[in-house]
Structure formats: structure tokens, C-alpha cells
């Protein structure tokens, strides 16, 4: 009658809706797993100098996290390896248990934030090859994100061209915090290459922009404060890309904003439209209202979902954004994981449920 603590019931999951998870974080068991994918020159660099980013800290994040490795407390595999490093355990604890039909991998290896641009490019190549060998070749449900170095667009373009023939790469991954706002022209070659490869740009929260996360007013005091700063960083991406005219130049560019939440989108769009009506002569290169670019070019993932006291309020917000633009994500194995069964506190009707849990992501990422 008693069950060992490690066991978890996988039965009865088959009756549940299959889901596409737009945010899964794979990690390496240790640095040794990365080294074979680097040329000798960069292997030596990794072991001698390692990371150098625009912050004082080299091997850690800027704020202490709520949990070790930012992970769910139950996400360490039985073999003691880091959360997200063991495919078998990921299958058992997440892919099988939660009915994941496709899962998009987002490795957080900071290739794009390296000050040494050549090292960043080598790291991006290595992580891309590692995704193929360690994950994609072993698990047909998984898809990968194509890492590039935004501060060296020429290298980024080469990497997109090198990898994009493998259609298991479903997006080009950029951090929202780069050296400059995302709409600046220095990054346009990357957008151009993504459009040419018919890949959306995925932006997962984070990046090391070299500035305090509080949008210019100094360092944050708490993790809860830093956690929230991920949202204004995403808003800055939308504002910059729309106002710089990126979407006039690349009318087929698609953006997936991952983990930046979404309830802010209608308010931001209203505000931009109001200001645009007054000041559109400053940005005459915009042929449409800002909200129309947002509606047409941006997709948003659900986790960590907003939890208003009235669940219906969240559904109202989703209808204002567009039901076809919201995609389910879990953030597995991180602590703020959302479970597909309980993520929505209210009842979603069947049509919208299918769109959010599967169809929107399948359409954007060309799955099947």
C-alpha cells in the first residue's frame, strides 16, 4: 500500500490534451560535456578564462535565486546530476507525464553575452551541435533553438546559415537584454537571416546588457524585484522593434517572446497608439499604428502566468491580445514551472484550449 517517494504515477495522462511546450531548459551535466564541441583553442580558453560578460560576476547570476539552479526542488534526477541534464528523467518527469507532443529547447548558455565575440561564436556553435547530438537525435519530440551572438551579427548570420537546414531548429534565439535595444539596425542582419531561413526569432528573458535591471535607476535589492524586471525588458524589445521600423523592413519577421508574460501587451499597445497619434511625424517610417505591428508580429508564451483574482479577467486579456498569439510553456525544470493541468484557474473553452496548448505553436514553429 505504500509507495516509494521517487515514484510518480504516469497513468491516466493519456486522456489529457497533448501539449507543445515552448520553453524547456536543457543543461549540461558538467563543463566536460561542452568541451568536445569546442575547437582546441576555445577548449583551452574555456578552462583557463571561461566566461566574461558585462557584469562583475563570471559564473553566476546577478541575484541569488529562490532555489538552487533556479530549479524545482523535485527536478534533480536520481543520479544526482543537475536538473535538466538527464533525458531519461526529463521524459519521465515531464515529456511523458505531461503529454508533451513537442518541446522547444532553450539552452541558457550565455553565448550571446560573451564580451569575447569569437568565444561567443564558438560557444554558440558548440551548444547548437550539443543540442543536436544530446537531445534532438535521441528524442523525436524535442526541437531546438539556434543560438547566435547578437553583438557579432556577421557570425550570427553564418551560424544561422550553418544550422537552419536542419529543420529541427525552430527559432533563432536572442536575449532581450543586448548591448543596444533590439530594434537597432546593428541587429537587422540577424533578422534578415532569420526571415531568409524562414525562422522566427525567439527571445527568452535574460541576457546581460551591462546595466542594472531596473531600466536605468540602479541595482535592484531583491530577487522578486529582479524577477519582475524581466517584464519591462520585454516591453522595451517590443517598443524598440516597432518604433525603429523593423517590421516595415522585414514584413514577414515573427517574434516569440518567451517567459516575459503577456498581460501587459494590451496596455502597452494602447499607450503606444495614443502617443503615435500625437507624434507620428517623428516616426514617419511607420505605416501603421504600433498596435497593428504588435498584433501581427509578436507571439507570447504563458509561463509564468499571471493569476488575477478573477480567472475570467485573464481570458479577457488573452482575447484582447489575440487567441492565436498565445502559446503554452512550462519552463521545465525551473522552479516557476507551470503545470498544463492547473495553469488556468478558470475554464478555457475547447477551441481556445487547443489553440493555446498546441495549434498556435505548431503553426509558428512549423511542427508537422
Amino acid at each position, binding site marked *: *500500500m*505504500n*509507495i*516509494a*517517494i521517487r*515514484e*510518480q504515477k504516469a497513468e491516466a495522462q493519456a486522456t489529457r490534451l497533448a501539449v507543445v511546450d515552448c520553453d524547456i531548459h536543457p543543461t549540461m551535466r558538467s563543463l566536460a560535456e561542452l568541451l568536445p564541441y569546442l575547437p582546441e583553442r576555445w577548449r583551452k580558453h574555456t578552462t583557463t578564462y571561461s566566461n566574461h560578460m558585462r557584469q562583475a560576476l563570471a559564473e553566476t547570476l546577478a541575484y541569488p535565486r*529562490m*532555489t538552487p539552479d533556479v530549479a*524545482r*526542488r*523535485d527536478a534533480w534526477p536520481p543520479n544526482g546530476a543537475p536538473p535538466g541534464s538527464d533525458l531519461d528523467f526529463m521524459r519521465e518527469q515531464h515529456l511523458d507525464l505531461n503529454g508533451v507532443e513537442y518541446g522547444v529547447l532553450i539552452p541558457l548558455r550565455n553565448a550571446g553575452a560573451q564580451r569575447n565575440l569569437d568565444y561567443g561564436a564558438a560557444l554558440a556553435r558548440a551548444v547548437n551541435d550539443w543540442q543536436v547530438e544530446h537531445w534532438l537525435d535521441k528524442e523525436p519530440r524535442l526541437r531546438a533553438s539556434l543560438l547566435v551572438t547578437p553583438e557579432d551579427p556577421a557570425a550570427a548570420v553564418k551560424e544561422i546559415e550553418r544550422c537552419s537546414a536542419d529543420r529541427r531548429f525552430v527559432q533563432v534565439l536572442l536575449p532581450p537584454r543586448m548591448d543596444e535595444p533590439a530594434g537597432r539596425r546593428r541587429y537587422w542582419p540577424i533578422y534578415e537571416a532569420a526571415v531568409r531561413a524562414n525562422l522566427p526569432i525567439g527571445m527568452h528573458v535574460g541576457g546581460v546588457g551591462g546595466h542594472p535591471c531596473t531600466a536605468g535607476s540602479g541595482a535592484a535589492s531583491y530577487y522578486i524585484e529582479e524577477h519582475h524586471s524581466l517584464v519591462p525588458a520585454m516591453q522595451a524589445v517590443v517598443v524598440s522593434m516597432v518604433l525603429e521600423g523593423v517590421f516595415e523592413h522585414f514584413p514577414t519577421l515573427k517574434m516569440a517572446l518567451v517567459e516575459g508574460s503577456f498581460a501587459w501587451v494590451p496596455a502597452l499597445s494602447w499607450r503606444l497608439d495614443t502617443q503615435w497619434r500625437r507624434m507620428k511625424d517623428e516616426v514617419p517610417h511607420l505605416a501603421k499604428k504600433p498596435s497593428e505591428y504588435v498584433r501581427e508580429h509578436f507571439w507570447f508564451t504563458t509561463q509564468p502566468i499571471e493569476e488575477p483574482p478573477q480567472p475570467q479577467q485573464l481570458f479577457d486579456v488573452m482575447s484582447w491580445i489575440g487567441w492565436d498569439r498565445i502559446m503554452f510553456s512550462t519552463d521545465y525544470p525551473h*522552479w*516557476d*514551472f*507551470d*503545470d498544463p*493541468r*492547473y*495553469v488556468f484557474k478558470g475554464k478555457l473553452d475547447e477551441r481556445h484550449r487547443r489553440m493555446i496548448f498546441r495549434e498556435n505553436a505548431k503553426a509558428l514553429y512549423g511542427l508537422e
Partner: protein
Amino acid sequence: MARHVVATVGEIAPGASKLVTVKGREISLFNVKGEYFALANKCPHEGASLCRGTLVGLAESDGPGDYRVTRQGEFLKCPWHGWEFDVRTGQSWCDPGNTYVRQFAVSVEPGGELLKGPYVLETFQVAVDENYIVVEM
């Protein structure tokens, strides 16, 4: 309401937990400094398995820089989003009125008493000289 023998006293170390199934329901058992508590295993927020959570204390503060931690080990912190539940009541600290985990009465009984009944022993072999954890549900 029946009383179910679910574990021996020695098998859950202080601060540790054990997942058991009683009448088809998963129950997590906790040993808090020698006292035993039983809570439903599903977090009311997003369904995490609570037996994987950690037992923590209550951090309180009257203002920045002034804090105290009391009731060490008496709060169960969910392994996912960190919701904290009082193991004595099952109530969440942040939202005690609406968010709570069902709690079950637990007692420790000597094997000699259990053999007299009327307990549901199921697979348990009860020895006279051992003590057992009994859940009521």
C-alpha cells in the same frame, strides 16, 4: 472514517517525508521533530507533489533589517512555486482562507494495541514491540 496503519515510527527521519496511499488517495506524511502530520499530497495551487517539498520555518519581519524565524520545520514549502503550508492545519500562510491542503489526524500507536483492532492493517505486519503511525480517514 477508519484508522489506517501507514508506517513504522522509525522509518521517517525528523524533517523527512513519506508518500503513502490510503483509500486510493496520496497522502504525504511528515516527521516534525518527532510529531507526525499527514496532508493530501497535491498542492492546491498547481498540483505539485507536496511530499517532495521542504520543511521550513516561518520568517517574519516588522520592517527592513528586522526579522525572526520561528516555528522551525513546521511549514511545508511546495517544491515548485514555494507556497507555504502550516503542517499543523494545512492552511497556506499567504491565503489561509482560500488556499489550504486537506489535513488528516495522525496518531502513534504501539503494536500491541493495534493487534486488538479495529484498525485497517492491509499489508502491514504488525509487531507487538514496535510503534506505528496511524492516519484517520
